[in-house]
């Protein structure tokens, strides 16, 4: 790709907590559809986004079984973003902060993601066309 850009996103929010996560994933999706190379540095609660043991559930309060509830799982969104980038000639390097992972016990994450350190964020930002840090507060 002649004009393949590299973008870095740093995200901090855990799943199901804030619209920032949705906006971040929308941005990453746009970049993935363009075939860009994308670095994602997930830290603090965001390391749970790719946690492999997330499970769909029924909702007895509403009388829904698992299929009817159709519960969205962030790990599936992460996997989908990785596949979308690959299908368009790009790639996603999804890095979970190892310290944040260990603190939360979310050591199993979906394929295509890996552990890393804040130094990975530094290196990713240094080699990217653009970087966006979406912090929590």
């Amino acid at each position, binding site marked *: 790709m002649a004009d393949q850009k590299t973008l870095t996103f740093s995200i901090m929010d855990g799943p199901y907590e804030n*619209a920032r996560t949705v906006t971040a994933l*929308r*941005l990453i999706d746009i970049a993935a559809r363009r075939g860009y190379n994308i670095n994602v540095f997930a830290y603090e609660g965001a390391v749970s986004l790719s946690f492999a043991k997330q499970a769909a559930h029924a909702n007895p309060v509403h009388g829904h079984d698992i299929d009817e509830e159709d519960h969205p799982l962030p790990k599936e969104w992460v996997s989908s973003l990785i596949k979308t980038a690959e299908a368009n000639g790009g790639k996603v390097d999804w890095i979970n902060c190892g310290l944040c992972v260990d603190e939360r016990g979310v050591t199993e994450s979906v394929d295509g993601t890996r552990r890393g350190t804040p130094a990975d964020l530094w290196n990713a930002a240094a080699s990217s*066309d*653009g970087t966006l*840090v979406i912090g929590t507060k």
Partner: protein
Amino acid sequence: MAKYTLIASRDAFESKESERFCALAGDLKRAGNEVTLFLVQNGVLCARPSHVASELSKLAQEGVAVLADSFSLRERGIASDRLAAGIESAQLDVIVDHMAEGRRVIWN
């Protein structure tokens, strides 16, 4: 001259930080930079005509590009043709465009 894109995600009616963030956009513009202020999530609530939006309209008059995420507007039932003067509806793609261009993109 540098190029800045400031992303305002907070409801200006709830957070004073939004006011300071908008002031930063104006300061950067008056310092000779190219500035885009992109409203997203609850940040688009201040795109409706109000005393808060009038400050954004002033920024637009000064040359700041003030944009509001069309998805966030739809989520909140705000019609894109009912925005305050100088504020335009835009796709989130603008942020990715600006990142790829190498602009300094700052989230609040």
